[in-house]
């Protein structure tokens, strides 16, 4: 299997994530889409790691996962806080920054 197939798949997954972020209103789903994007990047990392024949890419994936875990914990905590305050997590209803 050539590298390109994995990279194409990675690009498609990433784009799916981007579209999800753009069109969904539920903060949690947006958050999931961000995870999806991170995973797409991970896939590219691992594929390229194999292509180059060394393990550095996999190490980066480990880092990405650790940071993603931290991010999820913080992000969900924020979502819970927002929900407590406003009884909604729809990003278009949380628009206090409207100019």
């Amino acid at each position, binding site marked *: 299997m050539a590298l390109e197939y994995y990279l194409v798949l990675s690009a498609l997954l990433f784009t799916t994530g981007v579209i999800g*972020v753009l069109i969904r209103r539920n903060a949690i789903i947006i958050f999931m889409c961000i995870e999806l994007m991170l995973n797409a990047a991970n896939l590219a990392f691992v594929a390229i790691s194999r292509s180059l024949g060394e393990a550095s890419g996999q190490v980066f994936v480990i880092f990405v996962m650790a940071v993603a875990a931290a991010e999820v914990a913080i992000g969900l905590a924020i979502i819970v806080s927002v929900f407590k305050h406003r009884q909604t997590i729809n990003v278009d209803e949380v628009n206090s920054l409207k100019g």
Partner: protein
Amino acid sequence: MSKELIVVLLVAPLVGFLINGLFGKWLKGNEKLSGWIGALAVLVSLVCSIIAFTSLNSGAAPLDETLYGWITGEGFAFNIGFRVDALTAVMLLVITGVGFLIHVYSIGYMHGDEGYTRYFAYLNLFVFAMLILVLGNNYLMMFVGWEGVGLCSYLLIGFWYEKQSATDAGKKAFIVNRIGDFGFLLGMFTLFAAFGTLDFTTIFDAAEAGNFQQVFGASTLVIATLLLFVGAIGKSAQIPLYVWLPDAMEGPTPVSALIHAATMVTAGVYMIARSAVLYNIAHTGEIVAWIGVLTAFFAATIALTQNDIKRILAYSTVSQLGYMFVGVGVGAYASGIFHLVTHAFFKGLMFLTAGSVMHAMANELDMRKMGGLKSKMPITHWTFLVGALAIAGFPFLSGFWSKDEILHSAWGGSPLIYGIGLITAFLTAFYMFRLIFVTFYGESRVEPEVASHLHESPSVMWVPLVLLAIPSALIGLLLGWGGHESWFHHFTKAVAGFSSEAHGEASGNVILFMVISSVVGLAGIAFAWTRYSKRVPSDEPTGALHRLLANKYYVDEVYNALIVQPVKNGSHFLLWQLVDNGIIDGIVNGVAALIRFVGGLLRRLQTGLVQVYIVSMVLGIVLFLAYYLFFT
């Protein structure tokens, strides 16, 4: 004497200030502690000063050391450094000695005040600044201290900031001082331009060698010294900038005693004595002497007609400062400083006694409402009497020695100065005893409800009085016996510029001068006795001269008409209404309106919807990628 000692000496009041200033809230419930922390800080300094003084006295070399570079640049360097010689040592003793007693006195005097800890914080800060002023080994350090004491003076005059008159007086003192400080700054600039440094040692050496840049031609030093003297005029309340000092009596009385009689106002005298070398070379002393003697005379005449105890003392201070300037002006630097020392003690004493009287009289200051206080307040009375006798030149009390020395030196400079000085001495004795007779003797004119709780002050207040009264009486005898051969002259001989007393060379019979001074002083006392032992000063001034004096020569009014009103009007019509409102506001509002208009257009982009932002982000990414992938 070591560097560390000086650092401790300097830092102790700073520590006191920090404790009282930062932790004042917690100390509030325990004001005694706060007061004693302040006093203790100054006591530490006092002990250090005594150590420094004794080591100097036993022949140790003066200290002149740089601690570290403060501002260093291409071709110049300003350092934090100390210079401790005889002059500094004397000043240190006066500052910390009188300062300590006044701190102790304040513990009782300020009892129950709302801003108790604030007061002690300011007082400590003042001591710190004053110490910097006298310890610095360059003009910049001196200026730092100079401004520091100015700030503390402002803070303390306006200490009771709820009172309109107090804040006004504070502002007045600050603004008037600013004029003087401006002169001082220009003087410093001149010196820096000429010498490339502000270090005392370097400047004095170069000046003596004539090795400096003639920035103003031959009159460089003349201009520099005169500009510095402008600073001294402001700080030491000489004509024409003396107007702030009488108003400064709005502050708490111990402040008047410490700052506006004993220490800060003498900074000008100290500065000129410190710069003695320059004044000797520039021959500008005569101007100093003339300003001094005129101030002495005018202030004394004003004091004749005042009825407010503290105002009399304030004018008396101005007058005595004039004497000091006469001393340093005619080149008798040691005598001038000697008078500074004695004056610090007896004037501090008198202010504190005045405070004691105020304390007893429920803040009444008009002496026409007093009278006969002698029996009610014996200690206050006697200590005040000592002070008054000392200032009046009563034989063998301290004022007698120092004033006599100055007059004696003045004769050597100009007999006319001597003459005016002598008249002033007479006036001084007269108004002081007018004050005594009206206040302490005769019938009691105290209002009944005040009289009921008329009492002697608590020990924490009268002990310092006694402690000040003793040196007021004796210090002249101890230090000044022997005129120009005295211990004091001997001690300060080594200070730069002191030894070459160009004009002040003693001439004539010393004993004769002493006798003349004593007779004049006694005559003043006697005259006061005949006029006021039975009589009370009338409310209404009688005669033109009296009115003129009672209104202080209308100086305030003249200043108001000539300076304050034009400036106000100019500010109002030209600066405010035309420049500020018309031009500057126009520009500012125009810019704001423009931005508001543009912002209003851009505002629509700020939807508050995260996803709109992300869409624009992604759009950007897509475009960038497209550009790099397909067009490069």
